[in-house]
């Protein structure tokens, strides 16, 4: 480890700044425990000069939301020639966009809830009501509505009746210019972390998420105690294998690198639906990746220290 050091980027200006700061603190502490020297930097106007001047041996991106996952920061790091943990810029741009990732995976035969994606302008220009009616006809109710990009469940809503739809649209469009409407899958939610190792991508044990309120929203995510987690998920062996395989396939098919987390829902009939993939998974005290690591008998620090080594070596 000697004099090697990494910069952990956290904060930024996305809606998930608060979550990101917590992720940053957590992964920094974990890295230090594993013997890696760490500086924690915010992503603001001082970042580029700092990167140029101090040139860390590698960067760990703990930014969530736009700038951290849409390829922007990755592009900058590639321009500067600084190694970083995570998926390359070009792939981020595609995989971060939920409809794009869903389309790619569906083409490859992966099961994902049926969906439509529409920009705000389409509703304005074509008249909202007929478009909303067509959406309900196609996807049924309840329906899942969320911003086409983003995380932490911000703007994500379960719409149970057609009458709620206009309000929910306004809520989702507050976070993004386009909305992703999906068939709602009633079932058990699981999250599977995938980490690249010497033998290729490997799934960590799935974490099952059981929010007390029934909805895994922002409050249920970041208030300790409001959600019960089962690690490993309470799935029979065959389903557990299917879930792990889905996450590894998503990682491979989308071309992700180092680490990813796939969110999925297991329906009552045992079908496994791909929901979305996270390029910069949450690393907070209440986040899923650290739980999965623990269940796998690995520490967060050793996983990220290993990924730092990989980043530097490539």
């Amino acid at each position, binding site marked *: 480890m000697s004099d090697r050091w990494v910069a952990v980027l956290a904060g930024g200006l996305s*809606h998930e*700044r608060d979550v990101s700061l917590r992720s940053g603190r957590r992964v920094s502490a974990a890295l230090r425990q594993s013997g890696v020297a760490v500086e924690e930097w915010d992503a603001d106007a001082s970042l580029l000069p700092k990167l140029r001047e101090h040139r860390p041996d590698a960067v760990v991106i703990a930014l969530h939301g736009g700038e951290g996952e849409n390829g922007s920061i990755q592009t900058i790091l590639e321009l500067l020639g600084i190694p970083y943990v995570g998926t390359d810029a070009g792939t981020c741009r595609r995989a971060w966009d939920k409809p794009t990732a869903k389309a790619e995976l569906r083409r490859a035969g992966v099961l994902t809830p049926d969906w439509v994606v529409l920009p705000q302008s389409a509703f304005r220009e074509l008249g*909202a009501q007929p478009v909303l009616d067509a959406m309900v006809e196609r996807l049924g109710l309840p329906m899942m509505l969320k911003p086409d990009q983003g995380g932490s469940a911000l703007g994500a809503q379960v719409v149970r009746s057609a009458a709620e739809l206009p309000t929910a649209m*306004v809520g989702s469009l507050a976070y993004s210019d386009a909305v992703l409407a999906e068939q709602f899958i009633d079932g*058990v939610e699981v999250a599977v972390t995938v980490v690249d190792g010497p033998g290729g991508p490997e799934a960590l044990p799935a974490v099952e998420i059981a929010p007390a309120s029934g909805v895994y929203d922002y409050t249920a995510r970041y208030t*300790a105690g409001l959600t019960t*987690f089962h*690690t490993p998920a*309470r799935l029979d062996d065959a389903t557990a294998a299917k879930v792990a395989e889905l996450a590894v396939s998503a990682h491979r098919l989308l071309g992700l690198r180092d680490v990813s987390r796939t969110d999925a829902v297991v329906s009552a009939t045992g079908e496994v639906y791909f929901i979305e993939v996270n390029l910069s998974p949450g690393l907070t005290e209440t986040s899923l990746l650290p739980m999965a690591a623990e269940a796998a008998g690995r520490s967060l620090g050793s996983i990220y220290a290993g990924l730092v080594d990989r980043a530097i070596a490539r």
Partner: protein
Amino acid sequence: MSTSGPLPDRLGARSLDPHLGRYAARAEGMTASEVRALFAVASRPEVVSLAGGMPNLAALPLDFLSDQIASIVADDGLVALQYGSAHGIPLLREQICEVMALEGVTGHPDDLVVTVGSQMALDLVTRIFIDPGDIVLAEGPSYVGALGTFASYQADVRHVVMDEHGLVPEALRAALAAAAQAGRRVKFLYTIPNFNNPAGVTLAVARRAEVLDICARHDVLVIEDNPYGLLGFDGQVYPALRSMDSDNVIYLGSFSKTFASGLRVGWALAPHAVREKLVLAAESAALCAPTLNQMVVSRYLATHDWKGQIKSFQTMYRDRRDALLAGLEQHMPAGCSWTRPDGGFFVWLTVPEGVDTKAMQPRAVTARVAYVPGTGFYADGFGSRQMRLSFCYPPPERITEGVRRLAGVLADELDLLRTFGPTASRSLSGPQTPAPDTA
């Protein structure tokens, strides 16, 4: 069924909070919220924050203060660094009486308790008067920090409407009558008569005696919270409610807005009979307000032109208020209305029908401007069409820029509502608590 397999079952089950079953009922609302999360972005310099209520301390004489603080420690350190009485330092209590005299209050230093900010005074008063379920009347909207305190003592808060002249006496009568009809006891009226947080309005002098009279007739105590009273932009001061009725008013004061909020020095002036309980409550809450900080305030009042300093604060805040009002005048779309404060820190903005300020907040953050959604200032979910805009902290040109951005956000939101029709406005959701630094 794939998910009910008996195998690993609850082995790996965990709640991340092992204390879950232990919390008191009053901890119930203490959860993470999206509103709070967005304030993390608002604190970045890229964002024009019209959300925070932090006083602007830039004009304080820091060199002078650092000399004074050094000399307090050098000359009197063993007192300054020691516990003091829960009552507060006698000299400071005398000086506070001189400060209150500016608003016509004649109180005895013995009837005054020095607290850790007026926030603690609020806590003490609630602690000694409120049992769970007791009714507290408060202006609608009211100070979020007070609502938090009332909630933690499980008070039942009822709001009384204001107009541009403050609390409406007729509405106060109606609220008292409604409570009486329901056979319920109202313990006190909590009011911020001057430059209300968040509404920016002031209780008309002509209404003051009437409000006091109504409360006295109904045997309802008045809690007068007055941190902004000396920040009238034309140097005007209004007679405190306490100056008109010394028996039925507890007056809460603070040095947070007129001197330094971080020192956490405030006070309560109570009727003689109540004072003893306040002192005992203060003792159990904090033992005493920080001695050093009390001495710093005392020294400042004794050696600095503190009235001149307040005058310079008035001018600074007036310029900021002017920038905010001019910006609103110039940029806000039709259908908006707002208050025009002549002191304090805040403007209360009402947006066009259908707009939900909480739902719009992420869009504002994307546009790099922040405000506090109105629902935080009500205990009953009201306020979805309102927001609080603070002009205390950013310099005038940033305020102007912030209003320009806000107008753009509002225009986009109106466009969205036109698209989705009148049913798109959000139904009322429960109260949200903004972060303390937005208070």
